[in-house]
């Protein structure tokens, strides 16, 4: 019993990138469900949910904002020419969002698979992931054809 408690305490303290292997080890050793272990790590009574999320997301979000502003700098330099081509202005949000949409689908589906322990060994051999990429490729072709009509 003490061993379980120690393991759970260790899980609470562990950094995110060591999170999955430990969860699977505790799950195998103590037969505690992965859902419970996920809860203990992420949203346990002593964890601060907003702080955890902000701490993890802030750096990459700031990096993305700065990168987008660099893209905006190029647009700002051709401001007058850009707004004179109306179809380009109409397509700006579509082009801006399309790749982000695919990226979000892949990342959210893949992270759900990782959390559920459905990806073991070589991730690139995972059949579900392969299927997702094929689906996204087909959809990207359809969407490109639709948006150019």
């Amino acid at each position, binding site marked *: 019993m003490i061993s379980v408690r120690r393991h759970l305490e260790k899980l609470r303290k562990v950094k995110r990138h060591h999170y999955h292997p430990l969860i699977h080890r505790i799950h195998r050793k103590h037969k505690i469900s992965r859902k419970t272990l996920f809860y203990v790590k992420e*949203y346990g009574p002593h964890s*601060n949910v907003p702080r955890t999320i902000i701490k993890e997301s802030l750096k990459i*979000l700031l990096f993305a904002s700065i990168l987008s502003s660099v893209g905006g700098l190029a647009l700002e*330099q051709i401001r007058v020419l850009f707004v004179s081509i109306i179809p380009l202005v*109409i397509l700006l949000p579509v082009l801006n969002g399309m790749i*982000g949409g695919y990226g979000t689908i892949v990342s959210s589906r893949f*992270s759900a698979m990782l959390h559920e322990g459905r990806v073991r060994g070589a991730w690139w051999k995972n059949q579900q992931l392969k299927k997702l990429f094929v*689906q996204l490729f087909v959809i990207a072709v359809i969407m490109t054809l*639709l*948006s150019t009509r």
Partner: protein
Amino acid sequence: MHVLDKGFNDILSSQIVSLAGGLVAGTLLALYTNQLLLIPAIFLILPGFLEMWGNVSGTFASRLSSGLFLGVVNPQRMHTKAVAGNLVAAFCLALVVSVVLGCVAFLFNRIVFGLSTYQLLVIPVIAGIIASVIVIPLTLIITFALFRRGHDPNNIMGPLITSLGDVVSVLALLIAFSLVIL
């Protein structure tokens, strides 16, 4: 490998909604080009501001979906610590990113174009507050509603939020501009 399954239909329909939403936002941009051109260095802010909702609300929806699938978030109860924490985090992130966007745009405008436009610091923040009050609660409600109806929110929310964010962002920028400048 059966590619044309329910997931495929979900992704395709959400992408079509995203395309439609993007075109609506683009049409708004084209309609209000004259007003938008009055906003100093608008194109420095615009790509980052449009992208922000995909980054903040998209990941918010993704975290909620993971929680719902794992069973740590109850689909019948929104008022839990995990959901509230996620909601607060999404609001804070949107606000911080808006502030940073304003600062970066101000700096770029000053360094590259030699103009000191202080309104650039305020416009993205006001627009960010207006848009986050609309987009973030909608993300929460739609994610829960989709999950309850048996859909995978992971397939739908990304494109949907991007398009919703695009439309709301353009309107929020116009409102913020009219509040600050006019």
